[in-house]
């Protein structure tokens, strides 16, 4: 039936078009209808669907459904729905249209069955999502968006180059297990790595996400990196280097997150930390580990979305985002505070909250596959998460010293969106089988046994104790207005400066080359114009006689040739 073969991105692109043409409540209804209808449609798809096209002799698979892509399909529909609800109050067509295209592209990418289709949606993701950053319409956002776009497009170009090389070496464009062998695989790996915010490639994320609009960040946090996680899970499961990359990703952002003042940037760092768990799970590559990785991706979208939403609500109402400027908001925003705490509890993997049921899978897998060092790093990271995301975010925004800001609760649509996410977080935490039955591999795992629960609770309590002690003894890094240097310092300071120095040396040579080339080119063009211009010998109207001369000459060539031969 054609309905099952309707690619999931199509409703979203149609929705984007309709959102551009409509206004007011009609647009709200249409935009909400898209993920609902699309999600229901996806529920009716079971098993394996594949849609193939022939283009220039290559088989393209713009739509391929299996258990792995289906899980991400459900996830993105839920995330899109929540984020759309959250952004309903916004009166900005640009944001709505871009968000719809963005969500649709993410779906297109996870259901792409070949690398070329993946590339198309990869670039669409970049182009549509940058609009959500630029929509903030500040000069900082413009700059950050431009840097974001350059890096994202670079990732797309690497992907395309890798895909074409892959086609040459393997003769296939299929987007399946690739494995890290050969230049093509490395190019593709690097492309995925950029989008996945690998260490040293991660700065676009912490640079751009905090600069997006309050609602835009919610969309951004849901899609781009998760598409990359999906792509890694599809193409490079069991690649050992990913285990170490993932472990590093879980640890290093913690230090930055602890000293960072902009709370959304804290969340951005914590996002890299969470993705680290997923990357690590994919790298371990056993059924349990990959299940854990994708399950964690699922949960991360929900609780990270919830945290970004609560911070978005704060930003929307107060216009401030620095921990040093906020505080004491629980008095005027009790509901938002509650939701934020639910998100914080989930990300810190409190038992009965969603983070717990998936993070422990990855950690168990690390132990089972004999990576004790990595396990320790993950353990450290878990404690760190609690520190910077679990306590720091709600503490500095809603409690701490009273900043004196008095606001109201956010608009109802924001509360509803946060409510849905919060309910889902608790639901999955209490009934993990709901999530487990969707996972790509069969699951035989119980998170709620005494070892897991006790170990996690100990970890959390000691972590909380540490925070409390540090805070009371004044050792905790205070929230200050500061600029924290990250690896981006390399390309925002060192590279431009060395570039300018190099240019200063090269300028005279450059001027000389330019001048002589320019002279030569203009000479060439004037020569061309003499012969080809309207009155040139080749373009003017010739007398009939000379035309006939050409005819005779050509005839002579053909006839004479025979005699010469």
């Amino acid at each position, binding site marked *: 039936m054609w309905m099952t073969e309707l690619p999931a991105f199509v409703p979203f692109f149609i929705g984007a078009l309709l959102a551009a043409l409509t206004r007011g409540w009609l647009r709200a209804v249409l935009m909400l209808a898209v993920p609902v209808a699309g999600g229901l449609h996806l529920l009716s798809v079971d098993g394996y669907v594949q849609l193939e096209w*022939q283009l*220039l002799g290559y088989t393209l698979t713009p739509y391929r459904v299996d258990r792995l892509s289906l899980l991400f399909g459900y996830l993105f529909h839920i995330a899109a729905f929540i984020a759309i609800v959250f952004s309903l109050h916004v009166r900005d067509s640009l944001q709505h249209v871009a968000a719809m295209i963005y969500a649709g592209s993410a779906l297109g990418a996870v259901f792409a069955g070949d690398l070329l289709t993946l590339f198309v949606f990869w670039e669409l993701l970049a182009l549509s999502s940058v609009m959500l950053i630029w929509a903030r319409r500040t000069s900082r956002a413009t700059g950050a968006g431009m840097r974001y776009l350059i890096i994202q497009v670079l990732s797309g170009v690497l992907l395309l180059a890798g895909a074409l090389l892959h086609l040459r070496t393997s003769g296939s464009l299929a987007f399946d297990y690739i494995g890290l062998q050969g230049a093509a695989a490395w190019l593709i790996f690097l492309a995925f790595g950029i989008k996945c915010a690998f260490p040293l490639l991660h700065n676009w994320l912490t640079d751009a996400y905090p600069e997006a609009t309050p609602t835009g960040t919610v969309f951004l946090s849901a899609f781009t990196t998760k598409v990359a996680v999906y792509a890694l899970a599809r193409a490079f499961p069991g690649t050992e280097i990913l285990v170490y990359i993932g472990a590093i990703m879980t640890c290093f952002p913690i230090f930055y997150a602890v000293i960072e003042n902009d709370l959304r940037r804290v969340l951005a760092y914590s996002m890299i930390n969470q993705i680290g768990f997923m990357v690590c799970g994919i790298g371990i590559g056993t059924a349990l580990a990959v299940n854990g990785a994708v399950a964690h991706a699922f949960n991360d979208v929900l609780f990270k979305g919830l945290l970004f939403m609560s911070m978005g609500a704060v930003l929307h109402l107060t216009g401030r985002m620095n921990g040093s400027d906020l505080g004491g908001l629980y008095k005027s925003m009790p509901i938002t505070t509650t939701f934020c705490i639910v998100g914080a509890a989930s990300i810190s993997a409190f038992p009965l909250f969603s983070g717990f049921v998936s993070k422990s899978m990855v950690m168990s897998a690390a132990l089972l596959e004999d990576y004790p060092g990595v396990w320790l790093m993950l353990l450290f990271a878990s404690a760190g998460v609690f520190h910077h995301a679990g306590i720091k975010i709600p503490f500095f925004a809603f409690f701490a010293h009273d900043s004196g800001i008095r606001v109201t609760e956010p608009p109802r649509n924001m509360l509803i969106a946060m409510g849905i996410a919060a309910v889902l977080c608790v639901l999955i935490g209490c009934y993990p089988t709901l999530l487990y039955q969707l996972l790509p591999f069969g699951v035989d795992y119980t998170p709620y046994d005494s070892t897991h629960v006790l170990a996690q609770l100990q970890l959390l309590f000691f972590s909380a104790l540490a925070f409390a002690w540090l805070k009371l003894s004044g050792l905790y890094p205070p929230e200050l207005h500061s600029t924290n240097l990250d690896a981006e310092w390399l390309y925002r300071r060192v590279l431009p400066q060395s570039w300018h120095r190099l240019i200063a040396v090269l300028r005279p040579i450059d001027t000389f080359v330019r001048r002589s080339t320019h002279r030569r080119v203009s000479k060439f063009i004037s020569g*061309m*114009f003499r012969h*080809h*211009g*309207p009155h*040139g010998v*080749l*373009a003017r*109207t*010739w007398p*009939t006689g*000379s*035309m*006939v001369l*050409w*005819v005779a000459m*050509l*005839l002579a*060539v*053909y*006839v004479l*040739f*025979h005699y010469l031969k």
Partner: protein
Amino acid sequence: MIRQHLPALQVILPLLAAPTCLLLRRAGLAWLFATVVGFATFAIAILLLRQVLSQGDIAYAMGGWSAPWGIQYYVDPVSALVLLIVSGISAVVLPYAARSVAQEIPSERRCVFYTLFLLCLAGMLGIAITGDAFNLFVFLEISSLSSYALISMGQDRRALTSSYQYLIMGTIGATFILIGVGLLYVMTGTLNMQDLAQRLPAVATTRTIHTAFAFLVVGLSLKLALFPLHLWLPNAYTFAPSVVTTFLAATATKVALYALLRFVFTIFGAEYAFNTMPLGPTLLLLALLGLFVASAVAIFQENIKRILAYSSVAQIGYMILGISFATVTGVSAGILHLFNHALMKGALFMAVGAIFLRTGSMQLQHLAGIGRRMPWTMAAVVIGGLSLIGVPLTVGFISKWYLIQAALERGWWPVAVLVLIGSLLALVYVWRILEAAYFDAPAKPDAHIKEAPLSLLIPTWALVLANIYFGIDTSLTVGVARQAAGLLLGVQP
């Protein structure tokens, strides 16, 4: 009953409709009648193509006189494709003609105009369908004579001289073809193409046949405006009425190219033409020269119709280039570009005609800022231009893709590089048009220039959409072109 006689109806219908147009005496009626006939021939062409694709070639004995004696109509995938594009273009151009002709041609001549148009159409369809060498010459003359008259109807008085020049050159070409056919007849005693193909090998080494080949190839090269025999074309296209330019640019040279394919491959055979005679290198050289010289000339032109006319000469270079490879991929690329170029030039000339209708000028400098006043028309020019350059998702890309594949298949990668450089030249002359239309400030900001009427926009956009459609779904065009090329080269694809 009617199905059986479709090949005859394909030609007879417009041929008989032409004088009827003259008798109708009222321009509106004549237009309506011609349009209905145009659509009917298009429908017949579609039916013929479907029949050929499903049941194989159709041989039709005219008047019941069977093959070597009577005139035979023969429809195979090559001719069916040419019939489709010629009748399709006429079906799109005729609805467009109502407004355009009403402005450009005085009322007392409009009935004559439609008569000539239908005659020209009948001639071209006849060339594509006939299986008889002499009959082909007759149809060539019918279409040529009517097109001389059509061109001379242009508003500019230079239309007369350029039409006259075309007449002289066209007649020389036709005479050459007649001489060639005559020589063939002398040597073999037959005019039927298949019969000729059978009897030629026995006398192939004679000097007469060599001469016949030379006359035929040169005559047809003249008709299809192969560089350097293209000199009649720019003036004729520039000064003809918009409708005529569109119709001739999209079909006339294509039909001549089809005739060349027929003579070279079906009658003489690829082996003779490319191994005994120097057709391959000659065509390759002239195609590449034409490609570059004509594109370079187009870059410097100030008249938009002239830019497109020179671009046509360059594009013919691409088609001939494909044929000069004499491989299945090469010839199918040539045939593919024959079809695709008709779509893009048709769309472009129609859009340009719409601009002429509103502004009364073809000079680039007078088009400054037109992009804002006629957004839909200029959007058509943009897409047509992209197709001309060969941007993916347009038909132009498909043609170039296969052409480059054909070049690489033969290992001639320098040729592939030259094809790509040629596309860059196209980018330059298309850009000049777009620059004037979108980026230059209008000379007279208060001038009242409106968007073109719907009767012009709809046909134009029909072709523009065809440019995109056949750029994405290539199963019909590539499939038929491959089949046709295999047939011409005698290889089963």
